[in-house]
Protein backbone atom coordinates (compact mmCIF):
# COMPACT_ATOMS: atom_id res chain seq x y z
CA UNK A 1 0.00 0.00 0.00
CA UNK A 2 1.25 3.45 -0.86
CA UNK A 3 3.05 5.32 1.88
CA UNK A 4 2.36 8.45 3.81
CA UNK A 5 5.06 10.95 2.90
CA UNK A 6 6.73 13.65 4.90
CA UNK A 7 8.88 16.47 3.55
CA UNK A 8 11.94 16.98 5.73
CA UNK A 9 12.20 20.74 5.57
CA UNK A 10 15.65 21.84 6.63
CA UNK A 11 17.39 25.16 7.02
CA UNK A 12 21.19 25.22 6.98
CA UNK A 13 21.26 21.55 7.81
CA UNK A 14 18.88 21.83 10.73
CA UNK A 15 15.41 20.31 10.78
CA UNK A 16 12.91 22.33 12.80
CA UNK A 17 10.70 20.77 15.45
CA UNK A 18 7.55 21.18 13.33
CA UNK A 19 8.91 18.59 10.88
CA UNK A 20 9.23 15.98 13.61
CA UNK A 21 5.77 16.85 14.88
CA UNK A 22 4.59 16.21 11.32
CA UNK A 23 6.51 12.95 11.29
CA UNK A 24 4.64 11.90 14.41
CA UNK A 25 1.32 12.49 12.66
CA UNK A 26 2.48 10.61 9.57
CA UNK A 27 3.60 7.64 11.67
CA UNK A 28 0.24 7.44 13.42
CA UNK A 29 -1.69 7.64 10.12
CA UNK A 30 0.53 5.03 8.51
CA UNK A 31 0.01 2.67 11.44
CA UNK A 32 -3.76 3.04 11.24
CA UNK A 33 -3.69 2.54 7.47
CA UNK A 34 -1.29 -0.36 7.73
CA UNK A 35 1.38 1.24 5.60
CA UNK A 36 4.76 2.94 5.98
CA UNK A 37 6.21 6.43 6.15
CA UNK A 38 8.48 7.79 3.46
CA UNK A 39 10.46 10.90 4.27
CA UNK A 40 11.91 13.10 1.55
CA UNK A 41 15.08 15.08 2.14
CA UNK A 42 16.03 17.64 -0.50
CA UNK A 43 19.19 19.71 -0.36
CA UNK A 44 22.51 20.68 -1.82
CA UNK A 45 24.95 18.68 0.32
CA UNK A 46 25.11 15.31 1.99
CA UNK A 47 22.16 14.71 4.23
CA UNK A 48 23.11 13.65 7.69
CA UNK A 49 19.60 13.72 9.02
CA UNK A 50 18.41 10.60 7.21
CA UNK A 51 19.25 8.41 10.21
CA UNK A 52 17.55 10.85 12.49
CA UNK A 53 14.41 10.69 10.33
CA UNK A 54 14.33 6.92 10.72
CA UNK A 55 14.72 7.24 14.47
CA UNK A 56 11.80 9.67 14.44
CA UNK A 57 9.51 7.26 12.57
CA UNK A 58 10.38 7.05 8.86
CA UNK A 59 10.59 3.68 7.14
CA UNK A 60 12.18 4.98 3.96
CA UNK A 61 14.14 8.18 3.50
CA UNK A 62 14.52 9.39 -0.06
CA UNK A 63 17.51 11.68 -0.32
CA UNK A 64 17.87 14.03 -3.26
CA UNK A 65 21.10 16.01 -3.47
CA UNK A 66 21.93 18.46 -6.18
CA UNK A 67 23.87 21.73 -6.25
CA UNK A 68 20.76 23.44 -7.63
CA UNK A 69 18.95 22.49 -4.41
CA UNK A 70 21.38 24.18 -2.02
CA UNK A 71 18.96 26.94 -1.00
CA UNK A 72 15.25 26.48 -0.82
CA UNK A 73 13.77 27.67 -4.07
CA UNK A 74 10.16 26.96 -4.89
CA UNK A 75 10.56 25.82 -8.49
CA UNK A 76 13.37 23.24 -8.26
CA UNK A 77 12.12 21.87 -4.93
CA UNK A 78 8.67 21.55 -6.43
CA UNK A 79 10.07 19.86 -9.53
CA UNK A 80 11.80 17.26 -7.35
CA UNK A 81 8.77 16.63 -5.15
CA UNK A 82 6.46 16.40 -8.15
CA UNK A 83 8.77 13.94 -9.87
CA UNK A 84 9.05 11.76 -6.77
CA UNK A 85 5.33 11.86 -6.06
CA UNK A 86 4.46 10.85 -9.61
CA UNK A 87 6.83 7.88 -9.36
CA UNK A 88 6.01 6.87 -5.82
CA UNK A 89 2.24 7.53 -5.69
CA UNK A 90 1.96 8.46 -2.01
CA UNK A 91 -1.52 8.48 -0.56
CA UNK A 92 -0.76 11.61 1.39
CA UNK A 93 2.03 14.14 1.61
CA UNK A 94 2.45 15.76 5.01
CA UNK A 95 4.35 19.01 5.32
CA UNK A 96 5.02 21.30 8.26
CA UNK A 97 2.89 24.42 7.99
CA UNK A 98 5.79 26.83 7.56
CA UNK A 99 6.22 29.51 4.89
CA UNK A 100 8.23 27.17 2.66
CA UNK A 101 5.97 24.26 3.49
CA UNK A 102 2.81 26.05 2.46
CA UNK A 103 4.37 27.25 -0.81
CA UNK A 104 5.50 23.78 -1.67
CA UNK A 105 2.11 22.32 -0.71
CA UNK A 106 0.26 24.75 -2.98
CA UNK A 107 2.59 24.02 -5.87
CA UNK A 108 2.22 20.28 -5.39
CA UNK A 109 -1.57 20.48 -5.28
CA UNK A 110 -1.53 22.37 -8.58
CA UNK A 111 0.98 20.01 -10.24
CA UNK A 112 -0.68 16.82 -9.04
CA UNK A 113 -4.24 18.06 -9.63
CA UNK A 114 -5.23 17.54 -6.04
CA UNK A 115 -5.73 19.83 -3.03
CA UNK A 116 -4.11 20.95 0.21
CA UNK A 117 -5.59 20.94 3.69
CA UNK A 118 -3.67 23.66 5.46
CA UNK A 119 -2.80 24.04 9.12
CA UNK A 120 -4.21 20.77 10.39
CA UNK A 121 -5.05 20.83 14.10
CA UNK A 122 -6.50 17.30 14.12
CA UNK A 123 -5.92 14.50 11.65
CA UNK A 124 -7.84 11.24 11.64
CA UNK A 125 -8.79 8.40 9.34
CA UNK A 126 -12.47 7.94 8.60
CA UNK A 127 -13.60 5.29 6.12
CA UNK A 128 -10.03 4.98 4.97
CA UNK A 129 -9.87 8.68 4.21
CA UNK A 130 -7.67 11.31 5.87
CA UNK A 131 -9.89 13.87 7.56
CA UNK A 132 -8.47 17.11 8.82
CA UNK A 133 -9.85 19.70 11.22
CA UNK A 134 -8.39 23.06 10.32
CA UNK A 135 -8.99 26.63 11.47
CA UNK A 136 -10.53 29.13 9.07
CA UNK A 137 -11.43 32.81 9.53
CA UNK A 138 -8.34 33.32 11.69
CA UNK A 139 -9.38 30.46 13.93
CA UNK A 140 -12.85 31.83 14.61
CA UNK A 141 -14.29 28.73 12.95
CA UNK A 142 -13.08 25.22 12.26
CA UNK A 143 -13.69 23.20 9.10
CA UNK A 144 -13.78 19.43 8.74
CA UNK A 145 -12.07 18.79 5.44
CA UNK A 146 -10.79 16.04 3.20
CA UNK A 147 -9.37 15.59 -0.28
CA UNK A 148 -11.27 13.56 -2.84
CA UNK A 149 -8.25 12.65 -4.89
CA UNK A 150 -4.89 11.21 -4.12
CA UNK A 151 -2.49 12.22 -2.75
CA UNK A 152 -4.04 14.41 -0.08
CA UNK A 153 -1.62 17.17 0.77
CA UNK A 154 -1.76 18.21 4.41
CA UNK A 155 0.21 20.89 6.21
CA UNK A 156 0.53 20.42 9.95
CA UNK A 157 0.21 23.37 12.33
CA UNK A 158 3.26 23.82 14.54
CA UNK A 159 2.97 22.84 18.22
CA UNK A 160 -0.43 21.23 17.59
CA UNK A 161 0.99 17.71 17.82
CA UNK A 162 3.70 16.23 20.08
CA UNK A 163 7.22 15.74 18.85
CA UNK A 164 7.89 11.98 18.94
CA UNK A 165 10.70 10.59 21.07
CA UNK A 166 13.50 9.29 18.85
CA UNK A 167 14.06 5.56 18.82
CA UNK A 168 17.69 4.99 17.80
CA UNK A 169 16.99 1.28 17.39
CA UNK A 170 14.44 1.76 14.58
CA UNK A 171 15.40 0.31 11.22
CA UNK A 172 14.77 1.98 7.91
CA UNK A 173 16.06 2.32 4.42
CA UNK A 174 17.91 5.29 3.02
CA UNK A 175 17.53 5.69 -0.73
CA UNK A 176 19.63 8.15 -2.65
CA UNK A 177 17.66 9.29 -5.66
CA UNK A 178 19.37 11.06 -8.50
CA UNK A 179 17.29 13.39 -10.56
CA UNK A 180 18.35 15.23 -13.68
CA UNK A 181 17.86 18.93 -13.06
CA UNK A 182 18.61 21.58 -15.65
CA UNK A 183 19.73 24.59 -13.58
CA UNK A 184 18.73 26.90 -16.42
CA UNK A 185 15.13 25.77 -16.03
CA UNK A 186 15.01 27.58 -12.68
CA UNK A 187 16.06 31.19 -13.20
CA UNK A 188 15.23 32.31 -9.66
CA UNK A 189 18.45 33.11 -7.77
CA UNK A 190 19.00 33.42 -4.04
CA UNK A 191 21.31 36.44 -3.64
CA UNK A 192 21.62 36.72 0.08
CA UNK A 193 20.34 35.46 3.38
CA UNK A 194 19.60 37.85 6.23
CA UNK A 195 19.51 35.96 9.48
CA UNK A 196 17.09 37.53 11.89
CA UNK A 197 16.67 35.04 14.65
CA UNK A 198 20.28 34.43 15.60
CA UNK A 199 20.58 33.82 19.31
CA UNK A 200 16.86 34.32 19.71
CA UNK A 201 14.15 31.82 20.33
CA UNK A 202 11.78 31.86 17.37
CA UNK A 203 8.21 32.90 18.02
CA UNK A 204 6.93 29.88 16.14
CA UNK A 205 8.72 27.35 18.26
CA UNK A 206 8.78 29.08 21.63
CA UNK A 207 7.21 27.41 24.64
CA UNK A 208 6.87 30.79 26.30
CA UNK A 209 6.31 34.20 24.69
CA UNK A 210 6.49 37.60 26.38
CA UNK A 211 4.42 40.12 24.42
CA UNK A 212 4.41 43.90 24.61
CA UNK A 213 1.75 46.41 23.54
CA UNK A 214 1.14 50.12 23.62
CA UNK A 215 1.46 50.07 27.41
CA UNK A 216 5.25 49.65 27.19
CA UNK A 217 5.30 53.31 26.20
CA UNK A 218 8.16 53.31 23.73
CA UNK A 219 11.05 51.32 22.24
CA UNK A 220 12.98 51.39 25.51
CA UNK A 221 9.90 50.05 27.31
CA UNK A 222 10.67 46.62 25.83
CA UNK A 223 13.84 46.32 27.93
CA UNK A 224 12.20 44.83 31.05
CA UNK A 225 10.27 42.47 28.74
CA UNK A 226 13.51 41.33 27.06
CA UNK A 227 14.98 40.78 30.48
CA UNK A 228 12.02 38.61 31.50
CA UNK A 229 12.13 36.73 28.19
CA UNK A 230 15.82 35.95 28.77
CA UNK A 231 15.08 34.67 32.24
CA UNK A 232 12.27 32.47 30.93
CA UNK A 233 14.04 31.30 27.78
CA UNK A 234 11.09 32.89 26.01
CA UNK A 235 10.58 34.61 22.67
CA UNK A 236 9.58 38.24 22.44
CA UNK A 237 6.32 39.27 20.74
CA UNK A 238 4.48 42.53 20.07
CA UNK A 239 1.21 43.97 18.86
CA UNK A 240 0.72 45.63 15.50
CA UNK A 241 0.26 49.02 17.14
CA UNK A 242 3.79 49.07 18.52
CA UNK A 243 5.25 47.62 15.33
CA UNK A 244 3.48 50.35 13.34
CA UNK A 245 4.79 52.90 15.83
CA UNK A 246 8.30 51.67 15.01
CA UNK A 247 9.11 50.58 18.55
CA UNK A 248 10.07 47.06 17.48
CA UNK A 249 10.58 45.30 14.11
CA UNK A 250 7.83 43.51 12.22
CA UNK A 251 9.27 40.05 12.83
CA UNK A 252 8.00 40.27 16.41
CA UNK A 253 4.41 41.00 15.42
CA UNK A 254 1.81 38.55 16.70
CA UNK A 255 -1.73 38.43 15.40
CA UNK A 256 -3.52 39.06 12.15
CA UNK A 257 -0.97 40.18 9.53
CA UNK A 258 1.70 38.93 11.91
CA UNK A 259 2.56 35.55 13.35
CA UNK A 260 0.20 33.03 14.84
CA UNK A 261 1.73 31.50 17.92
CA UNK A 262 0.85 28.61 20.17
CA UNK A 263 3.16 28.57 23.17
CA UNK A 264 2.23 27.02 26.51
CA UNK A 265 2.47 30.42 28.18
CA UNK A 266 1.93 33.94 26.86
CA UNK A 267 2.68 36.89 29.13
CA UNK A 268 0.88 39.94 27.69
CA UNK A 269 2.36 43.18 29.01
CA UNK A 270 0.52 46.44 28.39
CA UNK A 271 -1.56 44.79 25.68
CA UNK A 272 -5.21 45.81 25.54
CA UNK A 273 -6.22 42.77 23.49
CA UNK A 274 -7.58 43.95 20.15
CA UNK A 275 -9.24 41.12 18.26
CA UNK A 276 -6.54 41.32 15.58
CA UNK A 277 -3.92 40.51 18.21
CA UNK A 278 -6.00 37.83 19.92
CA UNK A 279 -6.44 35.99 16.62
CA UNK A 280 -2.72 35.22 16.75
CA UNK A 281 -3.05 33.63 20.19
CA UNK A 282 -5.59 30.92 19.63
CA UNK A 283 -3.24 28.06 20.34
CA UNK A 284 -1.89 29.48 23.61
CA UNK A 285 -2.53 27.32 26.68
CA UNK A 286 -2.17 29.91 29.46
CA UNK A 287 -2.31 33.68 29.06
CA UNK A 288 -1.11 36.03 31.78
CA UNK A 289 -2.17 39.65 31.31
CA UNK A 290 -0.47 42.58 33.01
CA UNK A 291 -2.28 45.84 32.33
CA UNK A 292 -3.20 48.98 34.24
CA UNK A 293 -6.67 49.06 32.69
CA UNK A 294 -8.93 46.53 34.45
CA UNK A 295 -11.36 46.71 31.52
CA UNK A 296 -8.81 45.76 28.87
CA UNK A 297 -10.30 42.97 26.72
CA UNK A 298 -7.12 40.91 27.20
CA UNK A 299 -8.42 39.95 30.68
CA UNK A 300 -11.35 38.20 29.01
CA UNK A 301 -9.00 35.63 27.49
CA UNK A 302 -6.40 35.59 30.26
CA UNK A 303 -6.14 32.85 32.86
CA UNK A 304 -4.29 35.13 35.25
CA UNK A 305 -4.50 38.89 35.44
CA UNK A 306 -2.51 41.56 37.20
CA UNK A 307 -4.01 45.05 37.22
CA UNK A 308 -0.91 47.11 37.82
CA UNK A 309 2.00 48.94 36.27
CA UNK A 310 3.94 46.53 34.07
CA UNK A 311 7.16 48.39 34.89
CA UNK A 312 6.74 47.27 38.51
CA UNK A 313 5.40 43.77 37.91
CA UNK A 314 7.64 42.59 35.06
CA UNK A 315 10.98 43.26 36.83
CA UNK A 316 9.55 41.73 40.01
CA UNK A 317 8.63 38.64 38.04
CA UNK A 318 12.14 38.40 36.57
CA UNK A 319 13.65 38.78 40.04
CA UNK A 320 11.33 36.16 41.50
CA UNK A 321 12.30 33.63 38.80
CA UNK A 322 15.98 34.29 39.50
CA UNK A 323 15.46 34.05 43.26
CA UNK A 324 13.87 30.61 42.90
CA UNK A 325 16.51 29.41 40.48
CA UNK A 326 13.96 29.11 37.70
CA UNK A 327 15.72 31.60 35.43
CA UNK A 328 17.54 30.34 32.36
CA UNK A 329 20.01 33.12 31.77
Amino acid sequence: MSHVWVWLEQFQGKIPSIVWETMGVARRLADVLGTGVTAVWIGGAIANQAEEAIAMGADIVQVVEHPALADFRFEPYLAVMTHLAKEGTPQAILIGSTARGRELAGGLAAELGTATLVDALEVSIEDGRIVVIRPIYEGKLFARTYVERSPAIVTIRGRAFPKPDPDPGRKGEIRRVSIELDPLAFPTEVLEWIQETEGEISLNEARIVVGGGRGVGGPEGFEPLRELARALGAALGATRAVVDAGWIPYKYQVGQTGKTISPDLYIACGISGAIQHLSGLRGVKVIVAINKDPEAPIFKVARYGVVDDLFKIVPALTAELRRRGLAKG
Partner: protein
Amino acid sequence: MHIVVPIKQTPDTTAVLTVDASGRISWGDAPLIVNPWDEFAIEESLRLKEKFGGKVTVITLGPESAKEALKQAVAMGCDEAILLHDPAFEGSDAVVTATILAAAIRKLGAVDLVFMGKESVDGNSAQVPPALARRLGWPLLAYVGKIREIDPAGRTIVVERILEEGRQVVRAPLPAVLSAMQMNEPRYPSFMGIRKAARMQIPVWTAVDLGLAPEQVGAAASAARWPVVFAPPKQEVQCEFIQGESPEEIARLLVDRLLAEKVL
Protein backbone atom coordinates in the same frame (compact mmCIF):
# COMPACT_ATOMS: atom_id res chain seq x y z
CA MET B 1 4.33 48.04 -16.11
CA HIS B 2 1.03 46.23 -15.99
CA ILE B 3 0.35 44.79 -12.55
CA VAL B 4 -2.60 42.54 -11.84
CA VAL B 5 -3.82 42.30 -8.27
CA PRO B 6 -6.17 39.40 -7.54
CA ILE B 7 -8.13 40.27 -4.40
CA LYS B 8 -10.76 38.64 -2.25
CA GLN B 9 -13.74 40.10 -0.46
CA THR B 10 -13.89 38.87 3.13
CA PRO B 11 -15.92 39.64 6.24
CA ASP B 12 -14.40 42.28 8.47
CA THR B 13 -11.80 40.76 10.75
CA THR B 14 -13.64 42.03 13.82
CA ALA B 15 -16.88 40.30 12.76
CA VAL B 16 -18.44 37.79 15.10
CA LEU B 17 -19.05 34.64 13.07
CA THR B 18 -21.77 32.12 13.65
CA VAL B 19 -22.73 28.90 11.92
CA ASP B 20 -26.36 27.82 11.68
CA ALA B 21 -27.71 24.27 11.66
CA SER B 22 -27.38 24.01 7.89
CA GLY B 23 -23.74 25.02 8.04
CA ARG B 24 -24.18 28.52 6.67
CA ILE B 25 -21.67 31.02 7.99
CA SER B 26 -23.02 34.40 9.07
CA TRP B 27 -21.17 37.54 10.08
CA GLY B 28 -24.25 39.51 11.16
CA ASP B 29 -24.21 43.08 9.95
CA ALA B 30 -20.41 43.30 9.91
CA PRO B 31 -19.20 44.85 6.65
CA LEU B 32 -17.40 43.02 3.89
CA ILE B 33 -13.93 44.32 3.26
CA VAL B 34 -10.97 43.81 0.96
CA ASN B 35 -8.85 41.03 2.44
CA PRO B 36 -6.29 42.97 4.51
CA TRP B 37 -3.34 41.04 3.04
CA ASP B 38 -4.50 42.03 -0.43
CA GLU B 39 -4.48 45.68 0.63
CA PHE B 40 -0.73 45.43 1.14
CA ALA B 41 -0.43 44.11 -2.43
CA ILE B 42 -2.65 46.91 -3.74
CA GLU B 43 -0.61 49.55 -1.95
CA GLU B 44 2.70 48.15 -3.16
CA SER B 45 1.38 47.89 -6.72
CA LEU B 46 0.21 51.50 -6.64
CA ARG B 47 3.67 52.56 -5.46
CA LEU B 48 5.27 50.62 -8.31
CA LYS B 49 2.89 52.30 -10.76
CA GLU B 50 3.80 55.70 -9.33
CA LYS B 51 7.47 54.87 -9.79
CA PHE B 52 7.50 53.07 -13.13
CA GLY B 53 4.25 54.14 -14.79
CA GLY B 54 1.76 51.69 -16.27
CA LYS B 55 -1.44 50.50 -14.73
CA VAL B 56 -2.88 48.32 -12.01
CA THR B 57 -5.77 45.99 -12.78
CA VAL B 58 -7.64 44.47 -9.90
CA ILE B 59 -9.58 41.23 -10.35
CA THR B 60 -11.67 39.09 -8.06
CA LEU B 61 -13.46 35.81 -8.21
CA GLY B 62 -16.76 36.13 -6.39
CA PRO B 63 -20.43 37.00 -6.42
CA GLU B 64 -21.89 40.13 -8.00
CA SER B 65 -21.59 41.87 -4.63
CA ALA B 66 -17.80 41.47 -4.73
CA LYS B 67 -17.82 44.48 -7.06
CA GLU B 68 -17.81 46.50 -3.84
CA ALA B 69 -14.34 45.20 -3.05
CA LEU B 70 -13.17 46.02 -6.58
CA LYS B 71 -14.55 49.53 -6.23
CA GLN B 72 -12.70 49.94 -2.97
CA ALA B 73 -9.48 49.04 -4.78
CA VAL B 74 -10.27 51.50 -7.59
CA ALA B 75 -10.99 54.17 -4.98
CA MET B 76 -7.50 53.53 -3.61
CA GLY B 77 -6.06 54.17 -7.06
CA CYS B 78 -6.27 51.00 -9.17
CA ASP B 79 -7.03 51.73 -12.82
CA GLU B 80 -9.20 48.89 -13.96
CA ALA B 81 -11.34 46.21 -12.37
CA ILE B 82 -12.81 42.94 -13.56
CA LEU B 83 -15.20 40.62 -11.78
CA LEU B 84 -14.89 36.91 -12.51
CA HIS B 85 -18.35 35.60 -11.89
CA ASP B 86 -20.23 32.56 -13.07
CA PRO B 87 -22.52 30.21 -11.16
CA ALA B 88 -20.25 27.45 -12.46
CA PHE B 89 -17.36 28.87 -10.42
CA GLU B 90 -19.09 28.11 -7.14
CA GLY B 91 -17.31 25.67 -4.85
CA SER B 92 -13.89 26.21 -6.44
CA ASP B 93 -11.03 25.30 -4.16
CA ALA B 94 -7.63 27.04 -4.12
CA VAL B 95 -6.20 25.19 -7.10
CA VAL B 96 -9.29 25.73 -9.25
CA THR B 97 -9.43 29.37 -8.17
CA ALA B 98 -5.87 29.63 -9.45
CA THR B 99 -6.94 28.05 -12.75
CA ILE B 100 -9.68 30.66 -13.18
CA LEU B 101 -7.41 33.56 -12.20
CA ALA B 102 -4.71 32.31 -14.56
CA ALA B 103 -7.19 32.24 -17.45
CA ALA B 104 -8.23 35.83 -16.66
CA ILE B 105 -4.62 37.02 -16.43
CA ARG B 106 -3.79 35.42 -19.78
CA LYS B 107 -6.82 37.11 -21.30
CA LEU B 108 -5.50 40.47 -20.06
CA GLY B 109 -2.49 40.06 -22.34
CA ALA B 110 0.85 41.59 -21.43
CA VAL B 111 1.18 41.44 -17.65
CA ASP B 112 4.48 42.05 -15.82
CA LEU B 113 3.54 41.21 -12.29
CA VAL B 114 0.79 39.48 -10.38
CA PHE B 115 0.70 40.69 -6.81
CA MET B 116 -1.66 39.38 -4.15
CA GLY B 117 -1.89 39.02 -0.39
CA LYS B 118 -0.04 36.05 1.08
CA GLU B 119 -3.36 34.55 2.13
CA SER B 120 -6.96 35.51 2.77
CA VAL B 121 -8.31 36.12 6.26
CA ASP B 122 -11.21 33.76 5.63
CA GLY B 123 -9.62 30.72 4.00
CA ASN B 124 -6.18 31.24 5.60
CA SER B 125 -4.65 28.71 3.23
CA ALA B 126 -1.98 30.68 1.28
CA GLN B 127 -2.43 28.14 -1.50
CA VAL B 128 -3.63 30.36 -4.35
CA PRO B 129 -0.32 32.20 -4.98
CA PRO B 130 1.78 29.04 -5.48
CA ALA B 131 -0.97 27.33 -7.47
CA LEU B 132 -1.43 30.43 -9.64
CA ALA B 133 2.32 30.65 -10.30
CA ARG B 134 2.21 27.06 -11.55
CA ARG B 135 -0.86 27.62 -13.70
CA LEU B 136 0.86 30.60 -15.30
CA GLY B 137 4.27 28.94 -15.40
CA TRP B 138 5.83 32.03 -13.81
CA PRO B 139 8.26 32.22 -10.89
CA LEU B 140 6.69 32.47 -7.44
CA LEU B 141 7.96 34.98 -4.91
CA ALA B 142 5.79 34.34 -1.89
CA TYR B 143 5.84 36.13 1.49
CA VAL B 144 7.45 39.27 0.11
CA GLY B 145 8.35 41.78 2.83
CA LYS B 146 10.13 44.22 0.58
CA ILE B 147 10.75 44.91 -3.08
CA ARG B 148 14.42 45.82 -3.38
CA GLU B 149 14.54 46.69 -7.03
CA ILE B 150 12.85 46.22 -10.35
CA ASP B 151 14.69 46.48 -13.62
CA PRO B 152 11.96 47.03 -16.20
CA ALA B 153 14.45 46.90 -19.09
CA GLY B 154 16.28 43.79 -17.91
CA ARG B 155 12.92 42.41 -16.78
CA THR B 156 14.08 41.26 -13.36
CA ILE B 157 12.89 41.83 -9.81
CA VAL B 158 14.72 41.46 -6.49
CA VAL B 159 12.69 40.95 -3.33
CA GLU B 160 13.14 40.02 0.30
CA ARG B 161 11.04 37.03 1.31
CA ILE B 162 10.15 36.71 4.97
CA LEU B 163 10.68 33.15 6.18
CA GLU B 164 10.75 31.77 9.71
CA GLU B 165 14.49 32.28 10.31
CA GLY B 166 15.02 35.52 8.42
CA ARG B 167 14.89 37.12 5.01
CA GLN B 168 15.77 35.41 1.78
CA VAL B 169 16.82 37.85 -0.95
CA VAL B 170 15.78 36.51 -4.32
CA ARG B 171 16.07 37.66 -7.90
CA ALA B 172 13.60 36.41 -10.47
CA PRO B 173 12.77 37.21 -14.07
CA LEU B 174 9.51 38.97 -14.90
CA PRO B 175 6.67 38.21 -15.22
CA ALA B 176 6.35 36.75 -11.74
CA VAL B 177 3.72 36.04 -9.09
CA LEU B 178 4.27 37.81 -5.76
CA SER B 179 2.48 37.44 -2.46
CA ALA B 180 2.62 40.22 0.10
CA MET B 181 3.36 40.25 3.81
CA GLN B 182 2.60 43.34 5.87
CA MET B 183 5.02 45.50 3.87
CA ASN B 184 3.48 48.98 3.93
CA GLU B 185 0.68 51.11 5.30
CA PRO B 186 -2.18 50.79 2.79
CA ARG B 187 -3.57 54.16 1.78
CA TYR B 188 -7.16 55.21 2.32
CA PRO B 189 -9.31 55.67 -0.75
CA SER B 190 -9.15 59.23 -2.05
CA PHE B 191 -12.30 61.22 -2.71
CA MET B 192 -11.30 61.44 -6.36
CA GLY B 193 -10.86 57.68 -6.43
CA ILE B 194 -14.20 57.21 -4.72
CA ARG B 195 -15.97 59.25 -7.39
CA LYS B 196 -14.23 57.32 -10.16
CA ALA B 197 -15.05 53.99 -8.54
CA ALA B 198 -18.68 54.89 -7.93
CA ARG B 199 -19.19 55.63 -11.62
CA MET B 200 -17.17 52.71 -12.96
CA GLN B 201 -18.94 50.01 -14.93
CA ILE B 202 -17.14 46.82 -13.98
CA PRO B 203 -16.97 44.13 -16.66
CA VAL B 204 -17.95 40.59 -15.67
CA TRP B 205 -16.09 37.66 -17.20
CA THR B 206 -17.72 34.23 -17.15
CA ALA B 207 -16.29 30.76 -17.75
CA VAL B 208 -17.12 31.11 -21.44
CA ASP B 209 -15.28 34.43 -21.62
CA LEU B 210 -12.25 32.75 -20.09
CA GLY B 211 -12.45 29.74 -22.40
CA LEU B 212 -12.99 27.38 -19.48
CA ALA B 213 -15.28 24.36 -19.76
CA PRO B 214 -17.76 23.66 -16.92
CA GLU B 215 -15.82 20.57 -15.84
CA GLN B 216 -12.66 22.66 -15.39
CA VAL B 217 -14.20 24.91 -12.74
CA GLY B 218 -16.26 24.92 -9.56
CA ALA B 219 -16.88 22.09 -7.16
CA ALA B 220 -16.75 19.56 -10.00
CA ALA B 221 -13.12 20.35 -10.69
CA SER B 222 -12.10 20.79 -7.06
CA ALA B 223 -10.46 18.08 -4.99
CA ALA B 224 -10.92 19.70 -1.59
CA ARG B 225 -14.12 19.12 0.36
CA TRP B 226 -15.17 21.00 3.45
CA PRO B 227 -18.59 19.59 4.31
CA VAL B 228 -18.71 20.71 7.93
CA VAL B 229 -17.89 24.10 9.39
CA PHE B 230 -18.34 24.61 13.10
CA ALA B 231 -17.55 26.99 15.91
CA PRO B 232 -14.55 25.82 17.91
CA PRO B 233 -15.32 24.49 21.37
CA LYS B 234 -15.60 27.52 23.63
CA GLN B 235 -12.81 27.69 26.13
CA GLU B 236 -14.32 29.29 29.17
CA VAL B 237 -11.49 31.20 30.76
CA GLN B 238 -12.17 32.74 34.10
CA CYS B 239 -9.49 35.27 34.82
CA GLU B 240 -8.03 35.01 38.28
CA PHE B 241 -6.74 38.41 39.31
CA ILE B 242 -3.56 38.19 41.34
CA GLN B 243 -3.43 40.81 44.06
CA GLY B 244 -0.82 41.52 46.65
CA GLU B 245 0.73 44.10 48.91
CA SER B 246 3.75 44.60 46.68
CA PRO B 247 4.98 43.75 43.18
CA GLU B 248 7.21 41.14 44.83
CA GLU B 249 4.25 39.43 46.44
CA ILE B 250 2.28 39.50 43.20
CA ALA B 251 5.28 38.01 41.37
CA ARG B 252 5.59 35.27 43.96
CA LEU B 253 1.90 34.35 43.76
CA LEU B 254 2.00 34.42 39.97
CA VAL B 255 5.04 32.14 39.76
CA ASP B 256 3.27 29.73 42.17
CA ARG B 257 0.29 29.58 39.82
CA LEU B 258 2.42 29.11 36.72
CA LEU B 259 4.40 26.30 38.32
CA ALA B 260 1.13 24.61 39.25
CA GLU B 261 -0.03 24.97 35.63
CA LYS B 262 3.27 23.37 34.53
CA VAL B 263 3.94 26.07 31.96
CA LEU B 264 7.24 27.37 33.31
